[in-house]
């Protein structure tokens, strides 16, 4: 049987962002896959060396829209460690609320795209209708829909009023009810299961070997969630990482579905425990030293390495985004699968290419 090479992407209906794959095929089976990136490299790491460290908060938010809140959170946490800033309790809880809202909207976005990728347009619209409610909460509380720019060095820029917190709770309850109705379509529907169960299996050993992070690792049975280390206010909230052991596309969908409920619970708990007080502390001077700051994003763990030298400009900022760690798992999962499953398989790693290339 002769081998054929099929280029997949960079422009493809299911891919929101440009990712190119060279698929070496034998009949309908993939025997080798080589991913290629580099279509949206913007040099943001370089840019952060030219901007002041206070301005960089807005640069790192633009690395990726979907997880912008957590990018800024990780960066601010890093700078706060360097400057020995103790941020107020209220700011810590507010950060968690916004970060979890971001997680919900990111997972809902992904679910819509997944439904679209296996051709269930109507389900896609159902999911995105729910996402719109989260976007409205974010616009009302933070002033913007996606890049909410609420984090700043030393705390948060905005406060959420009591009325808005109550409204948020009501809307989240609506989302939970809607998701409960849509959940069986994702998890029990015959056709959906047919497209997801047993596709792209990543065993626990493979996930460890390829250093997978986030929902990818959790769907393969690794209980790894950086939130459990209790950064920001997560230490005072109760939750368990959601773990599935199958490691296929269905398990990843399930993990993300359950994480939406988990995030709703976390927000409700954080609203209940939200302490009164200041939302930001002033700071003086410039940071010095090196620090590594890690937080859990919707797609997995993000690492910020910062080196400052006492001037306004940072000497180096390095971002390792979750998709950067998850792309190598494609090398493991794609060989052996059918061409028709490739779109679904790629989507289940939740690729965020602009994150990856920065």
């Amino acid at each position: 049987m002769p081998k054929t090479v099929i280029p997949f992407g960079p422009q493809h209906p299911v891919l929101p962002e440009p990712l190119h794959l060279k698929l070496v095929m034998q009949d309908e089976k993939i025997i080798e896959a080589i991913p290629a990136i580099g279509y949206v490299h913007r040099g943001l790491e370089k840019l952060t060396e030219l901007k002041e460290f206070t301005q960089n908060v807005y640069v790192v938010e633009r690395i990726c829209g979907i997880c912008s809140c957590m990018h800024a959170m990780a960066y601010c946490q890093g700078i706060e460690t360097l400057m020995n800033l103790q941020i107020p309790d209220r700011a810590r809880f507010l950060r968690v609320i916004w970060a979890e809202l971001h997680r919900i909207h990111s997972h809902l976005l992904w679910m819509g795209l997944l439904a679209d990728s296996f051709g269930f347009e109507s389900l896609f619209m159902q999911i995105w209708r729910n996402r719109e409610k989260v976007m409205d909460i974010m616009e009302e509380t933070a002033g913007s829909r996606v890049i909410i720019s609420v984090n700043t060095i030393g705390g948060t820029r905005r406060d959420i009023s009591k009325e808005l917190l109550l409204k948020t709770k009501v809307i989240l309850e609506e989302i939970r009810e809607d998701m409960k109705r849509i959940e069986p379509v994702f998890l029990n529907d015959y056709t959906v299961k047919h497209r997801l169960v047993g596709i792209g299996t990543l065993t626990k050993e493979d996930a460890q070997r390829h250093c997978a992070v986030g929902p990818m690792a959790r769907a393969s049975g690794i209980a790894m969630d950086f939130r459990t280390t209790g950064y920001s206010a997560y230490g005072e909230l109760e939750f368990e990482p959601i773990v599935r052991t199958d490691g296929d596309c269905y398990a990843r969908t399930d993990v993300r579905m359950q994480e939406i409920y988990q995030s709703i619970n976390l927000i409700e708990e954080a609203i209940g425990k939200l302490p009164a007080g200041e939302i930001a502390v002033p700071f003086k001077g410039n940071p010095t030293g090196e620090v590594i700051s890690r937080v859990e994003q919707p797609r997995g763990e993000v690492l910020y390495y910062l080196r400052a030298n006492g001037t306004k400009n940072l000497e180096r900022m390095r971002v390792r985004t979750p998709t950067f760690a998850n792309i190598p798992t494609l090398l493991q999962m794609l060989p052996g699968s059918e061409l028709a499953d490739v779109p679904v398989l790629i989507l289940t790693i939740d690729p965020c290419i602009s994150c990856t290339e920065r």
Partner: protein
Amino acid sequence: MIENVKQINVQELLHEVQSMQYDGCRLITATCIDNNDDTIDLYYHFDKDYEIRNLKLTVPKGSAVPSISRIYLCALLVENEMKELFGLNVENIAIDYGGHMLLSDGAPENPMLRQQITIVKKGEENNA
């Protein structure tokens, strides 16, 4: 200020990485930092049970570093990035994009190195 840093040299790198893998560590990533003095600091970050472990190398610019992608396949992206953006000669990467992973043909060479900044800035000023 970073915890668990182990300073090693280039010869020890593969051995140290191998022993990290025996310990069941997860490779997070590698970081290059231009020190402004013809050397590059090279960190390899590993994670075991949320505890970070770092290997630190200081190498001259443009020098050869062995690839760890035979031990950790997932290092291939970051090693290609090191090669392109910092001009380190990483040898034997499992998949070598040949300097075209992030950058295209007409792009500046090794844009993350310090010397390049001034050149770019001068060009901008002249144009304006």
